[in-house]
C-alpha cells in the first residue's frame, strides 16, 4: 500500500488537524471553559490516523477516553466536539459526555468509554452485529497498554477469535498506565506474542512510522474483510503530555524528558509535511486553522443545555 502524493497529503492533514486541535484545547484549558478532564493524544496521533485511513466509511471505530484522535481521524464533526468539551447543548452528547465520551454515529464511531478496557467488548459486540447482519463492515478498537492488563481484554480476544469476528484490536502502547511504567506492570513485554496464542494474527510496530502502521493495518483489514477473523496490532508510541490535562509533566519525576526525545525527533507530522510541496502544505495548514477557529467560536457562542435536560435520556 505504497502512499502516493494524495495519500500523504490526506494523512498529513489528518495528523495536522488532530495536533492543532489538541494544542488549541491545551491553550484554552487554563481559562476553565472546559470544566472536565481531557486526555490528549499529542504524540500518538499516527496510530489513529494510520489505522483509520485503511477503513471504509461504513466501518466502525471504538476508542477509550483518549479519543480525540480517533474521533477526528474517523471524520467526527469538529464543531460538535469542541461544543461538547465546552459543555454546550450543541455538543455531540448535548454536553453530557465531555471529552472522554465522544460519539459520532453519523461516521460510525461508537461512544468512547472512560473505564479502562470497557470499549473492547463493545467493539466485539459491534463486530458480532456486522457478522450476523452480513453488512461487510468491520470494527477497529483502540486501547491502551493498561487495558491489556484487564481480564476483559483477554476474554474479548478469545471470544472474537472463537467466532472469527471482524474486529481489529489496536493497542496504543505508550508505556505508561497513568504514571506506572510497563516494567512495574509486566513480567515480560511480549504482549504481541501473548495475544497470538488466542488464535489471531498479531503484529508489533515499534517505530511509530505512520506508513508502517498504515501498511500493517491495511493487511489486517483486508484479511478481516475476507472473513478470516480478528487481528491484533501493538503500536508503540509516546504520550508527550501528562496523562490527564494540558501540560508536559517531565518534571514530575516518573519519566525523564530524554525518554521522549527520540519520539519527538521522529514526529510524523513534520516528516509528512516535508514530503508534500510547500504551497499544498500551506493550504492544508490554513484550512485546519480556519476549521479550528470556527469550531471554538461556535462552541463559545453555543447555548448551554436547558435545565430540563438533566433528566432527559435516562431511559430510551
Amino acid at each position: 500500500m505504497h502512499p502516493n502524493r494524495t495519500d500523504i497529503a490526506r494523512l498529513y492533514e489528518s495528523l495536522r488537524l488532530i495536533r492543532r486541535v489538541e494544542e488549541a484545547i491545551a491553550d484554552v484549558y487554563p481559562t476553565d471553559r472546559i470544566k472536565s478532564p481531557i486526555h490528549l493524544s499529542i504524540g500518538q496521533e499516527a496510530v489513529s490516523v494510520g489505522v483509520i485511513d485503511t477503513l471504509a466509511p461504513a466501518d466502525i471505530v471504538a476508542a477509550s477516553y483518549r479519543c480525540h484522535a480517533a474521533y477526528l481521524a474517523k471524520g467526527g464533526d469538529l464543531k460538535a466536539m469542541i461544543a461538547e468539551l465546552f459543555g454546550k447543548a450543541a455538543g455531540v452528547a448535548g454536553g453530557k459526555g465531555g471529552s472522554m465520551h465522544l460519539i459520532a454515529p453519523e461516521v460510525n464511531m461508537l461512544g468512547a468509554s472512560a473505564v479502562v478496557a470497557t470499549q473492547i467488548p463493545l467493539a466485539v459486540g459491534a463486530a458480532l452485529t456486522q457478522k450476523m447482519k452480513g453488512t461487510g463492515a468491520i470494527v477497529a478498537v483502540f486501547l491502551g497498554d493498561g487495558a491489556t492488563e484487564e481480564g476483559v481484554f483477554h476474554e474479548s480476544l478469545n471470544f472474537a477469535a472463537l467466532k472469527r469476528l471482524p474486529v481489529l484490536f489496536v493497542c496504543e502502547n505508550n508505556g505508561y498506565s497513568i504514571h506506572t511504567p510497563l516494567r512495574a506492570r509486566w513480567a515480560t513485554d511480549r504482549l504481541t506474542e501473548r495475544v497470538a496464542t488466542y488464535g489471531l494474527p498479531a503484529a508489533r510496530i515499534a517505530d511509530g512510522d505512520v506508513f508502517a502502521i498504515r501498511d500493517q493495518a491495511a493487511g489486517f483489514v483486508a484479511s478481516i474483510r475476507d472473513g478470516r477473523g480478528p487481528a491484533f496490532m501493538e503500536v508503540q508510541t509516546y504520550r508527550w503530555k501528562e496523562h490527564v490535562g494540558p501540560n508536559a509533566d517531565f518534571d514530575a519525576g516518573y519519566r525523564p524528558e530524554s525518554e521522549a526525545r527520540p519520539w519527538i525527533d521522529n514526529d510524523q507530522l513534520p516528516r509528512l509535511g516535508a514530503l508534500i510541496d510547500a504551497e499544498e502544505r500551506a493550504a492544508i495548514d490554513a484550512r485546519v486553522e480556519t476549521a479550528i477557529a470556527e469550531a471554538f467560536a461556535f462552541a463559545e457562542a453555543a447555548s448551554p443545555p436547558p435545565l430540563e435536560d438533566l433528566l432527559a435520556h435516562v431511559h430510551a
Partner: protein
Amino acid sequence: MSMPECGARVLSYVDALREGITQEMARDPSVLLFGLDVDDHKAIQGSTRGLVDRFGPERVFGTPLSEDAMTGVAIGAAMTGLRPIHVHIRNDFLMLAMNQIVNVAAKAHSMYGGRVSVPLVIRSIIGKSWGQGAQHSQALYPLFMHVPGLKVVLPSTAHDAKGCMIAAIRDDNPVIFIEHRLLYFTETEVPEAPYAVEPGRARICAAGDAATVVGISNAARDCLRARALLQDTGITCEVIDPIWLSPLDTDTILASAARTKRLLVVDNGWTTCGAGAEIIARVLERAGPGAGIQVDRMGFAPTPCPTTPWLEADFYPQPERIARKVLCMVTGRDDDWTPNAAARQQSEDIAFKGPF
C-alpha cells in the same frame, strides 16, 4: 392469581418464559440469545430448550465463561442494532458483569446524549433449596434498582413471566430480568398469543382490607400462602406483586396502604437498603405525615445463606412467619398463634432434589 377458567391454557413458569422468548425471536430476527450453557442438554433448567434447533447457532449460542466480556459484547451488539438476551444460570454471577452493566449499559443512552440505546435483556435465576448456599442463592436486585438507566423485573407467575419477557425484549433499555428457581414449576393460565406485561404496573394478587402485603418474586407466593394461613383468624390482607421494581408502581401500593393503614413488604433478599426499604420510603413520602400507615418489612436473615437445611429454612421469611407478622401488625398481639395443620401443609414450598 385466580384459578384458570375452564378450557383456558395452563403453562408452567419455565414453559411460559420459553414461549415468550420463542415468539419474540420468531417475530424479530434481531433478537438473539446467548450465555454459558444455553445450548446444552439442560438448557438453563429448560428455559432455552429447543431454541438452538429452531433459530440456529448464529442466534442461540453458548459462550465462554466470560461474564464481563460477554456483557460488553451484548451491549455493543445492542448499540449497533441487535436485541440480545444474555442468560446467567444464577443471579450471583451478575457480580462478574457489574462493570459493563453499571458503567456502560445503564449510562450509555444518557451519557451519549440520547444518540445510542441499549435494548438488552439480562436474565438470571435466584437459587433456593437443596443447599444452594451463600453464592448460589442471592437476590441482588436492589443493586440494580439503585442505578438510573436500568429496568428491573421479577415476575412471580407464569403469566407474568411470559408477558414481562416480551415487554423486556421489546424495551429499548437494559432490563435486568430476574427469575426464581422455585417458580419454574408453578403454573397459571397463559394466553398463547403474545402479550406484554408493561413496566411500571403492579398487580393486586388478592384483595383484602386488614393490611397491605407486598411480596417480591417468590415472596409474592409466600405472601399469598400467608394470607391463606390467616383465613381462620378472619384477617384478610391485600397481597400486591410489584412485578417491576424499576420503574416501580408506587401508586397501586400507596392506594392500598392508605386504605388498610398497614404496609408490610416481604423482600426476597436482605432488608438493608433493600426493595422493601425503598417501597416503604416512597409510600410514606407520598402519603405524608398524617396518613398513619404502620409499616414493617421482612427479608432474608442478615447473613450469607447457609447450606444446611436446618439453618436454611430459617434464613427465609417463610409463609408462617409472614402470617404471624401480619397478625401482630393487625392485632398488636405477639402471641403463639399457629395456623391449622391442613393449611400449614398446603403452604409448604415445593421441594426438589438436586444436585443442580
